C-alpha cells in the first residue's frame, strides 16, 4: 500500500490479525495528493439460503456475519462497502430481507450490484424496491464507479418459463445445461456509453459487476456474452479496473488497459473450470489459482483481500485460511497483475494444482 502500510492497516484490529480471515476486500485508492486517498471494502456472494420459517442455512449466515463483523473492525475505516451480488440463493423476499438484515450491521454506506440469484425470481423487483436501480454510477474523490447488472440474458430465455420459481431454480444451478449466458445487454451498454462520455479519459474508472466481463467458461457462466462490447466502451480510459464476484475464487487478468480482479465468496468456494474434464475452458493464463479448498474447514477458501488502487492500478492482498497469504500486485513494467510469490511456475505449491 503506498500511503498506509499493511501493518498499520491491521494494527487497529488485533482480532483481524488473530482471526486470519476476512471474506471481503478492502480497497485503497491512493493519489499524488494523500488527502485524496480513500479505502473501500468489498463483500460478495453470501447466498443466504432459506430453509423454512425463520431458519436459514447456518454455514452461509456465518460467512456473511463474519465478513460484516470484521469489516466493521477495519482501521482505517473504509469510506463505503461494495457488495458484489448474490445476497440470496433463490431470490426470495425472506432471503433478501435476512441478508440485508445481516448487512445492516455494517457501519458504512453500502453500494450493491445485482447477482443472478437475486434476480431471476422476480427479475430484480424486490431487490430494486429495497436497494434502488439495477445499474448506476457514482463519483467518489476523483474516481468514477460504474455498477452494472451484468447477469441479464436473452429475453426469449427469460420469458419462456411457466413459473418464476422454475426460472430461478434453473439459473441457480451453476452447471444446469438449461441455463443461459449472462450479458449486460444493448440498453445498458447505451446507458454506459452515455455515462462514460461525461468522464475524462484520465479519470480512474472502477467497474463493479457480478459476472467477469470476460469469457472464461461458458458452462458455469464464468462469462459475459457481450464482454467485448463492454470492454470496448472502457478501452479509451487510461486506467480501468473491473471487480467481479460470481466465481467464488481468485482470478485475475489484464486485457489491454483493463485489469480484472475477482473476489472470493463469503459462502463457499467453487472449483476452477479446468477441474471439469468434459469441456474446454479459458482461465486467464495469468491466474495462479488459490489452494484447493479443505472441505473439513467450512470457511476455507473464503479468505480475505484488501486492494490498494495506487495511481489507478490495484494491488490485491489475499489472506487465506490455513494457507500462506497471497499478494497479486500490478506490475508497472509488464503492465499486468502478477502474484508476487507464485507467478513463476517454479515457485508454485502442490495445493495450487487443480484437477
Amino acid at each position, binding site marked *: 500500500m503506498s500511503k498506509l502500510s499493511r501493518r498499520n492497516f491491521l494494527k487497529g484490529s488485533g482480532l483481524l490479525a488473530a482471526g486470519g480471515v476476512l471474506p471481503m476486500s478492502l480497497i485503497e485508492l491512493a493519489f499524488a495528493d494523500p488527502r485524496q486517498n480513500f479505502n473501500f471494502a468489498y463483500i460478495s456472494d453470501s*447466498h443466504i*439460503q*432459506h*430453509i423454512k420459517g425463520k*431458519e436459514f*442455512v*447456518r*454455514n452461509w449466515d456465518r460467512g456473511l456475519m463474519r465478513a460484516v463483523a470484521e469489516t466493521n473492525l477495519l482501521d482505517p475505516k473504509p469510506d463505503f462497502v461494495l457488495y458484489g451480488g448474490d445476497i440470496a440463493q433463490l431470490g426470495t423476499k425472506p432471503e433478501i430481507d435476512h441478508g440485508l438484515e445481516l448487512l445492516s450491521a455494517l457501519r458504512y454506506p453500502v453500494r450493491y450490484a445485482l447477482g443472478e440469484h437475486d434476480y431471476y425470481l422476480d427479475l430484480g423487483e424486490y431487490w430494486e424496491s429495497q436497494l434502488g436501480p439495477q445499474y448506476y454510477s457514482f463519483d467518489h474523490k476523483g474516481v468514477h464507479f460504474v455498477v452494472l447488472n451484468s447477469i441479464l440474458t436473452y429475453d426469449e430465455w427469460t420469458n419462456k418459463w411457466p413459473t418464476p420459481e422454475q426460472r430461478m431454480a434453473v439459473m441457480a*444451478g*451453476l*452447471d*444446469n445445461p438449461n441455463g443461459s449466458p449472462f450479458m449486460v445487454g444493448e440498453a445498458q451498454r447505451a446507458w454506459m456509453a452515455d455515462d462514460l462520455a461525461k468522464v475524462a479519459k484520465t479519470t480512474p474508472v472502477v467497474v463493479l459487476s457480478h459476472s467477469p466481463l470476460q469469457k472464461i467458461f461458458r*458452462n*458455469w457462466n464464468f462469462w459475459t456474452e457481450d464482454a467485448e462490447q463492454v470492454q470496448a466502451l472502457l478501452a479509451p480510459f487510461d486506467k480501468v479496473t473491473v471487480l467481479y464476484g460470481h466465481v467464488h475464487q481468485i482470478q485475475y487478468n489484464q486485457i489491454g488497459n483493463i485489469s480484472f480482479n475477482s473476489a472470493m465468496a463469503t459462502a*463457499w*468456494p*467453487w*472449483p476452477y473450470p479446468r*477441474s*471439469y*474434464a*468434459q469441456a474446454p475452458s479459458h482461465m486467464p493464463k495469468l491466474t495462479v489459482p488459490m489452494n*484447493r*479448498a*479443505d*472441505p*473439513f474447514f*467450512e470457511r476455507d477458501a473464503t479468505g480475505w483481500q484488501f486492494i490498494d488502487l495506487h495511481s489507478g492500478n490495484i494491488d490485491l492482498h489475499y489472506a487465506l485460511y490455513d494457507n500462506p497469504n497471497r499478494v497479486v500486485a500490478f506490475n508497472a513494467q509488464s503492465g499486468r497483475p502478477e502474484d508476487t510469490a507464485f507467478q513463476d511456475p517454479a515457485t508454485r505449491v*502442490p495445493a495450487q494444482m*487443480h*484437477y
Partner: protein
Amino acid sequence: MSNITQSAVAAPLAALLCIAAGGVQADDFTDAELERWQGQFMEVVEEGRRLWGTEGLGSNRLVCGQCHPNAANTHPETYPKFQKQLGRVVPIWEMVNWCIRNPLEGEALNAADPRMIALQAYMNYERRGVAMEPGKH
C-alpha cells in the same frame, strides 16, 4: 489345454447354448445387449445427476451441486485415499457421507443404498476418460 481338446469341449457346449440362447455363446454379447447395459448404467447416472441437484439428501436444502458443479473437485479417480482429517484410507462413499452429514446436515447413507450407487455413478461419469490415480492428493 490344447486346441483339439478345447474344441472337443466347446462344441457340445456351444450346441447346448445355441438351444438356450438363440445362437449366442456365453462369453459373447451383441450390440443390442451392449446398448441395453449402457442404458441401464446411464439411467443410474441420470438418477445420480438428479440427486446431485435435489434437496432431499440433507435437511437444510443444500445440494451437492452448489459446491460441486458437474461433480467437479470430487476426484473419484483418486479414491481410495488417505484423508488426513479422518486419519485413514477411505473409499469415496465415506467422503460423500461426510458431505451429507456436515454441509448438508443429513443422515449418512448405507454403502449399498441405490442413491449412494447413483451418486458415485454420476461422479465417475463426469470424470470419464481421466486416468485412475488412487491415493493422489
